């Protein structure tokens, strides 16, 4: 036989064992080519431009470096403080959930997880509606004169609100998988309560505490929307400063320098986190999770737990409820409004969204922002699925080379949204007049989530199913249509909803690159909030309420479609 035929057959045989039958017809490289070129264009090229700008001698002046170190210091300071406070609330909550049974437990657990998935603008608007100068507390109790928005406290509290669920889940899991016999053993060996905690429980929990704290720190470190909207520009973290140096006091080289510092910091934190997580597998005896959960017994226990549950649910419920509430009540005069002001229930803030007013923030009816957002979200879904499917297929059964490519795809997840926006501005500034850039930026953020949703589902389809179908007479196309597609339907819907939700709530990148005449909901909320007058504020509340509802709806859909046990990021 000819050698040429031999090698080509061998290559085809190799391919047929490593990809689904219907893909064996064309080389595997194509699975990667499109997602990878997208990453090159949308991430690595802009990144290289940012790096180029940073390491220009004109950028690395002592003045710039001095400012950067100040900003870096403050970013660390607020992140550390936020993490500490989150731990302070999260740890007792974790203990409560791991050890006690009380009515409404699963509801409260779900409630604590809601903020984590809400867009930052919604959380900021919620706190503003509750505690802001135009919020419920201030207008209902005019005597209470405290400043909330514009303070560090506001930032810290919003961060705690956001991230408590991380501590609660990670430490709570570790606590409830802790063998109660260890505690009993320590006591029988003569340890009192303090020593049981100090010498037994805390050392075992340390990896979980460390890992969850690092994760919270990472989120606080890269937080943008909350700081900008609740703190204001005087609290310049790296993210906020980048934004200011792009849009308000333009200095792109300084912005580039700050984003490189930001990227290096997040990479270091992520690396430490990964180390902690991989090292933290402490083997404890497997046992049923229910065994050390009990109902509170003594009166003291009952009072303490009731108080704590009340505190916890208020903390999570009030901002979420205040937002829609505030959007239906007129509590102050609108701008330019004279004479008798009708206070009380109103739907004006919603109907006003449909009116194109001269002198308003926009030249189009604000409800257009909703249409824009939905349009961008739709485009993001299509784009991220088109790119995500081939990559997920390759990653479901990766070759050695593809294993290296995996972290590349996840890299945009570790870089800040503002930096992605900056990269787009530097690299594709000339195209910024087009609204088409926004879905590309959103896809960059959504792609890791889409791939991580699809990949386990694809990997869960045994190749034998496709072979069985093929041996029963199904052509490659029919295999894809009758086997893969129906089985992947749920995962595809989950991935699509992920992309949709991310696009709806994306704030940092969109604020930088969206055109004034094509605002998205978060951008519109930011603009309304920064304007005086009760009507503008009310419309911000109405928009934020719409966004909150859309997001919660999407979260419910994701939960419905998700394959149990998949989707760890």
């Amino acid at each position, binding site marked *: 036989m000819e050698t040429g035929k031999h090698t080509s057959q061998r290559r*085809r045989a190799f391919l047929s064992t490593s990809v689904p039958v219907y893909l064996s017809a064309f080389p595997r490289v194509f699975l990667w080519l499109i997602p990878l070129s997208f990453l090159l264009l949308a991430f690595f090229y802009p990144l290289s431009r940012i790096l180029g700008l940073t390491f220009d001698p004109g950028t690395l002046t002592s003045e710039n470096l001095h400012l950067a170190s100040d900003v870096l210091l403050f970013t660390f300071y607020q992140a550390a403080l936020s993490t500490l406070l989150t731990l302070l609330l999260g740890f007792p909550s974790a203990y409560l959930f791991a050890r006690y049974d009380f009515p409404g437990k699963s509801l409260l657990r779900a409630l604590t997880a809601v903020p984590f998935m809400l867009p930052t603008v919604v959380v900021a608007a919620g706190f503003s509606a509750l505690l802001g100068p135009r919020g419920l507390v201030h207008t209902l109790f005019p005597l209470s004169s405290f400043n909330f928005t514009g303070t560090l406290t506001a930032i810290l509290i919003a961060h705690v609100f956001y991230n408590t669920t991380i501590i609660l889940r990670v430490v709570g899991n570790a606590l409830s998988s802790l063998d109660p016999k260890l505690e009993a053993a320590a006591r029988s060996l003569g340890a009192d309560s303090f020593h049981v905690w100090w010498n037994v429980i805390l050392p075992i929990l340390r990896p979980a505490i460390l890992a969850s704290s690092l994760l919270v720190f990472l989120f606080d470190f890269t937080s943008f929307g909350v700081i900008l909207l609740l703190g204001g520009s005087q609290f310049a973290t790296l993210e906020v400063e980048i934004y200011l140096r792009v849009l308000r006091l333009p200095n792109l080289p300084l912005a580039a320098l700050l984003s490189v510092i930001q990227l290096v910091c997040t990479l270091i934190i992520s690396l430490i986190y990964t180390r902690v997580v991989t090292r933290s597998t402490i083997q404890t005896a497997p046992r049923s999770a229910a065994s050390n959960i009990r109902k509170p017994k003594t009166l003291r226990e009952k009072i303490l737990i009731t108080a704590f549950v009340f505190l916890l649910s208020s903390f999570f419920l009030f901002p979420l409820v205040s937002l829609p509430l505030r959007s239906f009540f007129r509590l102050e005069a609108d701008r330019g409004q004279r004479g008798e002001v009708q206070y009380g229930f109103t739907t004006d803030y919603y109907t006003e969204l449909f009116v194109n007013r001269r002198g308003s923030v926009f030249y189009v009816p604000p409800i257009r922002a909703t249409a824009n957002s939905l349009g961008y979200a739709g485009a993001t879904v299509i784009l991220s699925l088109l790119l995500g499917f081939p990559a997920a297929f390759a990653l479901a059964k990766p070759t050695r080379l593809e294993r290296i490519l995996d972290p590349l795809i996840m890299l945009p997840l570790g870089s800040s949204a503002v930096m992605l926006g900056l990269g787009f501005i530097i690299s594709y500034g000339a195209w910024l007049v087009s609204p088409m850039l926004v879905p590309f930026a959103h896809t960059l953020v959504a792609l890791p989530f889409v791939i991580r949703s699809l990949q386990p589902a694809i990997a869960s389809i045994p190749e034998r199913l496709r072979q069985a179908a093929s*041996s029963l007479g199904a052509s490659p196309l*029919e295999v894809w249509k009758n086997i893969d597609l129906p089985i992947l339907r749920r995962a595809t819907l989950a991935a699509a909803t992920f992309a949709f939700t991310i696009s709806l709530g994306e704030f940092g990148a969109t604020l930088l690159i969206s055109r004034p005449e094509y605002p998205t909901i978060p951008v519109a909320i930011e603009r309304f909030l920064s304007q005086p007058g009760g009507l503008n504020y009310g419309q911000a509340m109405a928009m934020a309420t719409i966004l909150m509802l859309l997001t919660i709806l999407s979260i419910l859909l994701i939960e419905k479609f998700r394959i149990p046990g998949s989707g760890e990021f």
Partner: protein
Amino acid sequence: MLEVHHIFKTYEGKPLLNDVSFAVPEGETICLLGASGSGKSTLLRIIAGLEEPESGFISFNGRDLTSTPAHLRDFGLVFQDYALFPHLNVNENVAFGLKMRKLPQGEIAERVANSLALVNLSGFERRRVTELSGGEQQRVALARALATRPRLLMFDEPLGALDRTLREDLLNELRMILHRTNIPAIYVTHDQEEAFAIADRVLILHDGGIVREGTPADVWANPESAFVAGFLGLGNLIRGEVRGKTKEDMWKVESDFGVFEVGCAHEHQKGEKVHLLARPLSAEKAAEERRNGANPINGVVEDVVFQQDRFKVTLDNGLYIYLPEAPKVGEKIEVRVKVECLA
């Protein structure tokens, strides 16, 4: 008739299948028997068209199938883990191949009903396949393969995941179905009992080639090699050295267990190393009359295990035999065992 011509295939640089050829005539069930990793499943997948050989080809009724993709070969394949489609119910699973062939609705319904009746699963049409037991799932997989009336049926360790009694029941049903439908079949397994129970002809695969081929009875009686005898667990394998010929045309072979007189199919040189097989079932207490090829073995009883109608007795020299009555542990016994020559 299916013909397999000179198949070569390597796996991670090592030869897995090395010039394998055989044929399956109409109505015959052949069994590929081999240890795991012997390449038997790969061979099956090559025949099915799911993998390509590096050289050699498959033909059916004289037609080369090299350029025929899997879905046009019309070969049914039954997998060890059944590979039922989890998103389809029993009825839809069995109808799958018929839908692919675009048969009219009425015929599909009729054939599905017939196939399910054949595997005793009538009434299961609407059940979800994930709710079925292992045995029921395997029946669905069989019905699915039968419904298309393939030109050839292939089974890749189809009963490997089932328990012993279920396996025997299904094996009996399968044999009857194969006889009734007269479809030629290739059955792949590592379990010799299964292979001998179902096959008209057994092919033993080892080191990339077929080392023994024949009817179950023939292979059992004449393993012809130490590997086959050992793989089938026929008895004690003993190394020996030829000393010479006796008057009765037997060969004198010296071993660690004494000098045996054995019958051999081939001529041997003096001093040649040979493998001997001492079948434990042939053991008799020494007092009885000496027969052809029955040689005395001495030893102290080390272990006795009850096995239904007999006792497995292990001696201190490592040999084992079966005896109808249990000796005492520690007892010194002498038995006569039939020893044969493995060429």
